[in-house]
């Protein structure tokens, strides 16, 4: 394990400038995204459908607090073979091809432009400008597999994998400064890259899935198998085991 003593001017001229640059670029990205952002038009049908699905889900989860009759009535409304909502309602679905649908295409392009491009540019510049030396040490030990990834430009076989180059410090900053952005720019800001990447992965889960028919079918299946176990079956007995607690009622 080598104990290296780094020149303190590395701290002054490399570590701090990278933090600074990442932060400023993030703030700029936020404002640029706000400028290029355009209002998303909401479709009444979609809103209505998503609320209906929500209601059905709540019925499944909390139906046990309702009287048996009411639960049966609502289940019937949704699942009746002839007149049930999920059986009867079929939505016309226009498959949205990402390549040809113009609005989605422009959104994707804008997203790429504002997020990926700066990251590539700045990452490359840092790699070029600050290469050939070790910048910092991560506080936990890493295996040798990490060496080619984190020690770009430093060809030392015996160097501990914990010593990293400036490019990896840059990436550390990109993700680490997220909470700083929240502090400065308020919640839900566009500089929050990791959230955007998360959104891309779980995209369909948040917004209304493009195929409401599929969603209806899965909701129908889920509702079919739910049984009504009334939570209030023994409520009086449970209530009367002990005296009521009136603390705080009379001051």
């Amino acid at each position, binding site marked *: 394990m080598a104990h290296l003593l780094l020149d303190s001017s590395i701290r002054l001229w490399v570590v701090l400038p990278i933090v600074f640059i990442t932060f400023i670029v993030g703030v700029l990205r936020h404002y640029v995204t706000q400028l290029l952002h355009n209002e998303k038009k*909401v*479709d*009444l049908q979609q*809103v*209505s459908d998503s*609320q*209906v699905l*929500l*209601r059905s889900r*709540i*019925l499944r989860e*909390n*139906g046990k*607090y*309702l*009287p048996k009759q*009411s639960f049966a009535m609502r289940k019937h409304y949704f699942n009746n073979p002839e007149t049930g909502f999920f059986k009867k309602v079929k939505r016309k679905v226009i498959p949205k091809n990402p390549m040809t649908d113009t609005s989605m295409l422009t959104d994707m392009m804008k997203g790429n432009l504002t997020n990926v491009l700066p990251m590539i540019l700045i990452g490359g510049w840092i790699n070029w400008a600050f290469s050939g030396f070790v910048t910092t040490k991560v506080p936990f030990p890493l295996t040798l597999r990490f060496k080619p990834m984190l020690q770009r430009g430093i060809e030392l076989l015996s160097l501990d994998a914990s010593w990293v180059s400036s490019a990896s410090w840059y990436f550390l900053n990109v993700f680490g400064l997220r909470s700083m952005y929240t502090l400065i720019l308020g919640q839900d800001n566009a500089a929050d890259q990791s959230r955007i990447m998360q959104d891309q992965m779980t995209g369909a889960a948040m917004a209304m899935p493009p195929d409401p028919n599929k969603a209806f079918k899965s909701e129908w299946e889920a509702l079919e198998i739910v049984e009504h176990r009334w939570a*209030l079956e023994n*409520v*009086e007995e*449970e*209530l*009367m085991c002990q*005296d*009521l*607690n*009136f603390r*705080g*009622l*009379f001051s």
Partner: protein
Amino acid sequence: MSSISELYDVTWEEMRDKLRKWREENFRNSEQIVDVGEELINEHASKLGDDIWIIYEQVMIAALDCSRDDLAWSCLQELKRQFPDSHRVKRLAGMRLEALERYEDANKLYDSILQDDPTNTAARKRKISILRAQGKSSEAIRELNEYLEQFVGDQEAWHELSELYINEHDYAKAAFCLEELMMTNPHNHLYCEQYGEVKYTQGGLENLELARKYFAQALKLNNRNMRALFGLYMSASHVAASPKVSAKVKKDNVKYAAWAASQISRAYQMAGRGKKENKCSVKAVEEMLESMQITMS
């Protein structure tokens, strides 16, 4: 005439935070909001920064409640100047017209908002409130039903509909609305209690048993709900006094009623602790419980 800050010795930051608390918890203490908000706007507008717009909105609605048309107009002017094309500001303008009872103009304004943005729920709800204010409750009910068909998740609307149905004495439908509310808020004791009351009012043995169960549930969720306690006592005694029940059910309900009565007297004893009239009030409670006994007719 001294200002609020002198009367209560508070700084402008505390006044602003108080307003925020009232706003977030949906208080309707309009006179207080008008007093505090008016002073904040007149004296400390520059220090508030961007908070001032939401304070304008809050104060304007409170001013409409208190018939302070001058204050409402000035707030509206400021908001219109800052946000000229906003639907939210248009809705406030519509509310002001409603307060002046110019319902036709208000309706036209809301229609124009809806033409622009069919999913705007605020404008639709204001239109329904206009119908209610004019006393056209059957039309209000019909419109509200249509609204709820599209926006099934709007809990405020379900509650409003249940109130309308109760006023029309259509208890079955009111019970349906309250069931929706109970489903989405299973831990809210107030909805359970209201549901129990509606079921009790509907009458009939099954409904009374349901009512008793839901009063018990409300008490379980919040031990201090006195209305639910009284409701439990009444529904249990009612079931016990009914001629159609089996002996076991009767015995159970007598037990429930007795327990409820004992809890009520306990509550009144605790309330009267340390006061001189304690003995009299406890006796009054016992007499009241006696008189509330349902006798078989």
